[in-house]
């Protein structure tokens, strides 16, 4: 008697071939530093992860790794390079030092690039300085002293 194959069994060779060929996915980037901070000196920290090039068993291939993280400060046209904790590995931490001088701060945009040249979606955050809301009570004058 001829056995009847299920649909999944028929599709299995194609699925395996697809998985074995590897799926190229762009890296991802996340931010750890809060959007609002005290003081002007700010170390902005985040993580970039390369999920690209996973093989049939889901393992990361040797080519996986974060090559660089770039960032652009609002008002500047230049994309600068962030400092990586480990180049060409994944996940990798990234750091920038930023001098936050204005109350409304600056919006900074980030993206990561993996070794295959794929770029992550950009993320952006406006980093603000905390403005103290505590108000000093104005002393009520009790007497008016006149110089004249």
């Amino acid at each position, binding site marked *: 008697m001829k056995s009847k194959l299920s649909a999944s069994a028929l599709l299995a060779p194609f699925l395996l071939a697809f998985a074995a060929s590897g799926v190229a996915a762009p890296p991802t980037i*996340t*931010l*750890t*530093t*809060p*959007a*609002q*901070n*005290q*003081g002007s*000196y700010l*170390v902005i*920290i985040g*993580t970039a992860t390369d999920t690209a090039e996973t093989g049939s068993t889901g393992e990361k291939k040797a080519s996986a790794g974060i090559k660089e993280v770039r960032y652009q400060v*609002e*008002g500047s046209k230049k994309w600068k390079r962030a*400092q*990586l*904790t*480990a*180049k*060409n*590995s*994944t*996940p*990798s*931490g990234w*750091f920038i*030092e930023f001098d936050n001088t*204005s*109350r*409304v*701060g600056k*919006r900074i945009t980030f993206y990561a690039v993996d070794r295959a040249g794929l770029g992550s979606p950009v993320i*952006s*955050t*406006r980093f*603000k300085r*905390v403005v103290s*809301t505590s108000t000093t009570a104005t002393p009520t004058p009790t007497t008016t002293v006149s110089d004249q």
Partner: protein
Amino acid sequence: MPQAPFKAESFEGKSVNRLPAIVLRNNRWTLFLCLLGVLILAFGYSVRTQPVPNAAPAARTAASDGRVSSGPISESNSPEVTTPPPAQAPGAAPAPVSFTKSPLYTSALSVAGMQEDDNRAEAIEALMESWVTANPQQAADWAGSLPAGTFRDDALSALMVHWAARDPAGAAGWMSRTGVDDGEAASVLAGSWAATDPSAAAAWASSMENLESRRLAVSSAVSTWAHTAPQAAAAFAGRLPDNDRASAITAVISTWAATAPAEAAAWLTDVSFGSPSDHAITLGALVTPWSAQNPGAVSKFINTLPEGPAREAAASQFAVTAAATAPAEALMWAMNLSDPDQRNQVTADACETWYDKSPETFRAGIEEAIGLMDDPAMRRSVYEMLYERDPDFQTQLLQLVDKNAQDKAVPPAPPAPEPLQLPDASLPPQSGQDTPAADP
């Protein structure tokens, strides 16, 4: 042979009744007009339902035309139109339209028409401060109705700054109720709330459903908390589930290191991390601000760390940051990193920090440092950095290094000849050795 559906000659040759031709022509016109109508309707429907991708350009166009639009999304000539823009998170309840009746709504439209720069950011802050004071719900509904983009992010962020200062629980309730799940806004709210009630802020943040928003909010809450009670903030972060724990600890350490880095380092020694990369990132958060304060102490601290990626990350961060104040020590750490790519990159970055801090000192000292760089790729990375920052000095440095290299390449002078050993006249001449001629 197939016949064309309408052939004029087929009618011309026949006698006379023109009525069928007229009817047929009318049918053609009817068909044509029907099709045209359908097309117009389809076009009109698509235009009506098409969302404007960014609020600012649409509103800016209206502003530049001298028109007043009903909102940043739908442009209209009538200022009385009250249809709110349909920007809603999936599953969210429809936003009320009350904000269009606010007297501040016109100001909001003006702000939306501004160019994206610092002035617009200031204007959004001022607008939100006023609107939150008058009616935070209206302000929130307007900000939440904006289409995705930086203008919306700025509006929500400014909203949360001022709302959280007055009624953080109300702001949190609005986010939950409306489904506006913006990570930046959640971060601002949690951080502001934590300034007055860190436990409540951290508890709210850690209850958020969206992973990314929750991570940002929790990090923000514990970061603010760490300003006043770092031990308590660290303890809270340490108890979080794995998905949120590492970033929360990093946020605490980053804040703590700015005021008491040695204490933060001591607390960190007892923490176990799920992965070496998490440990590396947290150490980087510790070392970066600490290196700017006390490079000597950081150098000693890194020496206590076991070999591995965490130590390498700490050394990298130290090298880049400390190069501003202790360039020799920073370059020593950079040039001894184990990974060649990381080593060359960090060395160039440390040189860049050094140059930015003091170009004169850099110019005076880099030649000696270059001499210590055996790897040509490392030298090249430094030259490339200099090419961007100071191309004239790069040329000078290259010439200087070339000259030194040539000087080193010149074969050493032959050793000075030893003094000629004259044979002792008292000894008999050996065979083949000429006897000095006697002076006459």
